[in-house]
Every structure is written in C-alpha cells, then in structure tokens.
C-alpha cells in the first residue's frame, strides 16, 4: 500500500507536548473487554514494562519477506497494556506491513507475534477479532449501504451467538443480543460524537465516517485497537478532538496502537513511540526521547531538528 507523504512541517513552531492523563479516566464502560469466561482473574505471563504493566502484544524478532523484498527485518518490541503506542517512520519504512502483521493479516516469515501470550499466525481473521484485536483502515472501509447504527452493530455482533435458528424462530437469545447490541451501538456512536445514528454511512461527513470506523471497531470489544492513520485529511480542530477521543478510549481500558504521519498528533497523544526505517526498528522510547534522537532525525532527512 502506498504510504502518504509526511505532513509539511511548520518550521516556526516548537512542538508542545500536551498534558497527558496521569491515571486512566474510566468515565464510560464502552470498549471494556468482556469478562473472562471463568470469572477468575488469570494473570498474563507476558513481559512487564518498568511500571509493571503486562505486554498484550509481543512482536518477537519478526522478519517479513515478500518475494525478494525484506519488508520487516528482525523487528522487536512490545505493546503494553493500557498504553498508547505510536508507530512512525518515513515512507516505505514498513509501518503498514508491521501493522498488518500485528493484526494478523500477514504471517511473519520468521519470528512470532503473540497476543496475550498466544501466537497470532494461522488463525482465521474473524477469530483474531474475537481474540480482542480491532482495527480501522487507512482508506475508509465502512459498509456504505448500511446506516451508522447498523455498521456499529456488525461490530457488536462479533461476540454474539445468534445464528440462523435463533433468528428464524426469534428465540430469546436473539432478543437479548439485539437489545444489548442496539444499546451498545447507540452508546458508542455518542461516545465518538456521531449524532445521526440512522443516516446511511455513505452520507456522513468525512470526519464522521472516520469516527464511525472507530466506533465500529470498538463495538467488537477489543483489548487492542489499531488505528491506521486516523487523522488523515483532518483539519487541526478535528485532530484535536481525535486526540481527546483516543485518550478517552484508552481511559476505558483499551490499549491503542497508532500509525500516524502528523507528528504533533503523535507526540501529543502517545506514551511511547517505535520508529521504523527500511524495515528495521531504529528507536523506541517516549516522545521526548524520540524527538531528540539523532537517528530518527536523520531518518526523516531534511526535517529541522526543532520542528513539530
């Protein structure tokens, strides 16, 4: 997939990293992953970050080859529970490839990707969603004929069990799941800020469509939400509200992975950043560390050191 060129940097402004929430703000219950079936808390046996949070996704020495092209070269990093991780790099760095591998679309040529300790490769794509990974798309892929409500309900259906017999005979399970799906969808649409729930997805504004995609992804009750350039085409005001939305999503307990070209957005919302170049990881750290990292600056050649 062709990568969009990095945003033109405004040389006169210094970046100002916004205040970040100190503690998760659990205002709503949307996006909260469902309880584990046994009701018992089974702690993950995955690596922990310095603050003790467990990794929910481990990219373990992953190499991905397409024919002769090495798209990813021994990439190694973890995504820790509850954080917002940014994945950046210049064009052709392999961000989208890495993103696709992390959401189970591509299988690594060597190395492993583990989600909650389990290998991702070889699973059917809808099962990966049921495991708790949801994503949005770089070029919006909504179901155009359906309304906003219906789009989100498809996401909510991911964990439902209604099938042909229950639907045909209108068994209790159907009524239960429809009602809860409907409620949840309304909640989620309000959460992302869409007012016209019954409008066909085609007719929504561009900003609403992007947010609808996020709502639909959240409806699948993910533990990890992967956003592929969610701010593409947004004006600064929309980017600001997107920033807040991402923080709110993290506040409900969902871990967020973000590919983005807008540096101000990335610096402003992420906890940590991983930088790729030519398929290799060249840096990993907090936004402040990344901003001053000479390797990163060199990768984005031509970008003045003090720009956003």
């Amino acid at each position: 997939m062709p990568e969009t060129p990095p945003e033109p940097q405004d040389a006169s402004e210094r970046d100002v990293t916004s205040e970040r929430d100190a503690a998760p703000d659990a205002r709503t219950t949307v996006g909260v992953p469902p309880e584990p079936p046994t009701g018992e808390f089974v702690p993950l046996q995955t690596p922990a970050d310095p603050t003790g949070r467990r990794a929910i996704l481990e990219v373990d020495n992953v190499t991905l080859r397409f024919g002769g092209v090495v798209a990813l070269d021994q990439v190694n990093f973890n995504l820790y529970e509850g954080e917002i991780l940014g994945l950046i790099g210049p064009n052709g760095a392999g961000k989208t490839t890495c993103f696709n591998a992390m959401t189970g679309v591509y299988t690594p040529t060597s190395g492993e990707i583990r989600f909650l300790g389990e290998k991702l490769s070889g699973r059917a794509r809808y099962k990966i969603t049921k495991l708790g990974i949801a994503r949005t798309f770089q070029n919006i892929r909504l179901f155009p004929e359906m309304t906003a409500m219906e789009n989100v309900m498809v996401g909510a259906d991911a964990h439902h069990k209604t099938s042909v017999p229950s639907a045909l005979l209108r068994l209790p399970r159907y009524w239960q799941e429809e009602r809860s799906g409907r409620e949840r969808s309304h909640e989620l649409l309000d959460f992302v800020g869409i007012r016209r729930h019954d409008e066909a997805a085609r007719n929504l504004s561009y900003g609403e469509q992007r947010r609808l995609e996020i709502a639909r992804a959240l409806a699948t009750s993910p533990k990890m939400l992967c956003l592929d350039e969610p701010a593409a085409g947004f004006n600064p005001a929309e980017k600001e509200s997107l920033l807040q939305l991402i923080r709110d999503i993290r506040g409900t307990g969902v871990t967020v992975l973000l590919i983005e070209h807008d540096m101000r957005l990335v610096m402003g919302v992420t906890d940590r950043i991983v930088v790729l170049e030519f398929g290799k990881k060249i840096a990993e750290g907090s936004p402040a560390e990344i901003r001053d990292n000479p390797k990163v600056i060199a990768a984005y050649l031509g970008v003045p050191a003090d720009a956003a």
Partner: protein
Amino acid sequence: MTDVRTRWRGFRHGVSQRWDRQPKATKIGLILVFIVFLYALPERGFYEYLGLPLGEYIPLYTTRNDMATVLFQCGYYILLAMGLNIVVGYAGLLDLGFFGFFAVGAYTVATLTSPNSKIFTEYNWLESPWPWLVALPLAIALSLLAGVILGWPVLRLRGDYLAIVTLGFAEMIRIVAQQNDWIFNGDRGIARIAHPPGKNSDGSPIFAFDAKPYYWLILTVIIAMVFLIRNLVRSRVGRAWVAIREDEDAAELMGVPTYKFKLWAFAMGAGIGGFSGALWAGQNSFVNASTFRLEQSILVLAAVLLGGAGNIFGAILGGFLVIYVPEWLRSVGDVFGLPEQVRIAGEPYDVSATNLRYLFFGIILIVIMIFRPQGLWANRRRAAELKDREKEAIVGA
C-alpha cells in the same frame, strides 16, 4: 420523460411515507385484507362479485390455463425467486445453477412416493411408497444438504469462479438424472408421484386435478416464508449477509464469520428451492430429466433481478412477472387472433410466448443490468448506492 419519472418517484415516495405513518393496527388490517384478496384470486365468484366481465377480460385473465393453474405456477417460481434472493440478493453469491436444488427436492419426493419408483420396483430398499407429507421434510433436508455439499468447497472462490462452478453443477445434476438405467430413469421419468394429503367433506381428495388447493397451499407457504425471511434479514444473520456483500474482507476483520454465513445462505436458498420442487412434484405428478433444463436457473435469476435483488417483495414481484407475463401475452395473442407460428421462406417458426420466453428474459437481464440494476421494486438504499457508483465512473476510460 424525466418529468414522468420524477412524478412517479414522488408518488412512490408519498405512498411509502403515508404507509410508514399509519398506526400498526391499520397496517396489519390492510395487510390482512390484501391476503384475503390473494386467496380469493382464483375464485370466479369473486370476480362476479366485483362486477368484472369474465371471459375475454384482457387485463387480468389468461385464456390457456385457468387462473388457478397460472397462479400456482407463479407460486412455485416465486418461492424459487425468494430462495435465490437470499443467495444472490442478500449474500451476493452468484449461483447460476439454482434450479438444481429444485430438482433435488422434486426427485426426492418422486423416488420416495411414486409406486413406479425403482426403489420399490427394482431395488427393494423400501417396502411401500411413502405419503407426500412424509417425503416433504426429507426433500427439504436433502436439498439443504445438497446446498452445503456444493457450497462447502466452492464458497471460498471468487465471484466469477463461483458462478461457473454452480453452472456446471446444475448441468452435472441433469446429466446424472439423464442416465436411463439409474434410479432417476432419465427421460422416461417417474410418474404417479403422490399428491399432498387431505380429504374433502365428501371423501374425495382435496389435492387432485383442480389447481386451486395447490395454489392456496403454496400461497400459505409463501406467506410463511415472507415472515421467516424477514426474521432472518432483521437479525445478526441479515446484517452479516449485507456486510459480506458490501465488503467481505472488512466484514471478516470486524469479526463476521463470513464462510459460515455464506454457507448458511447457500443452504437456506437450497432448502427453499427444494421445498418448491417438492410442492411442484406433488402437483405435476411426473418428473423427468428434461424438466430440469439450465434455462430455468437463468429464468429464476432474471426473476430475482427484475424484481429487485436483496428485497423480499422484489423477488415475489419478479417471480410473478416471469411466469405471468408470457402467459398473459399468449392470452392477448389468442384474443386478438395472433398466430403462434409464422412461415418465413416456407419454414414454420414457433413464435409462441413460451418458446421465446427465455430469449425475452435473457434480453431483459442485459437491459436491467445496464439501465436499472436495482430492479423494479428497488431497495431505496441500493438504488442510491448504484447511482453513486455511476457518478464515480471515470469519464472516457
């Protein structure tokens, strides 16, 4: 011309708005009245009551067959169209061999209920013929199974490959049926298939040669089917089907088990097709290999698309038109004394409506796809989406 179109659209819009605004009781009342009307259709007394002239009343009547027979034929095509609508219209899978499932249903009933069937005469697998009502669920089940068996290897394929494989499948079924020495008895066929059960108050069987009871039976089935299909469509299943049709990969990434639901669509369509076949066999009492020609699959497809794919009432409309229009044309021809055969350069050509029916609907298919792909009774949203696609067409490409 555009003025007429906008006025028509405005009229339809107005009607549907008025309909939506009615209280639920009124809606139910109107629907019931309509249903009673449908049941009353073949009764001559009904027309006399309305004061309509009988005999050569062109707008409604058909001369060759009585109304009940025509309606019954429409009925089983309507059922077929409803079944194929699930596969093509909702799930978006192009099944070109749908009539094969009709054949499975009809042949099941035939082999189980006819005393001529080789099960009893040659192979002695069973003692005596079964009654029609007992064979019916088995016919439906076998068609469902056939749908699963065909769908299972084939549904992972892309649309065009799926189309041609289903096309071949129907043909293979016909070739199997054509083998004279097997159970299906080729062109000689199986006769004396049992009729549905039931006796009148005077002891005579209800389902004999009069087409009316068959029509009422199939009308009841159709009405029941409308409710069942609506239940499916307004549920997770229906949403999944639309999602699959719109963007299968995105659907799968949103957690929709696409393969499972595609298989269900296929199976349900097949089951309905088989049901229709079983009903038809119970009426016709005879099946043979030439009953199941490929052209019938295309006719059902034309019915679905003409009426409006993805829309229950569109399928009903299409199924009705596909049978009724040629019959009606024949009647018009009869009333006006038009010939059924013309002589061109000494050779007689059969230009009857039924002979040209497939040619006519083949042309209709092409014309619909070009000019009105959403069909006659269009699903509003579909129509809008297709219009948008048109606008996106690259000029000059």
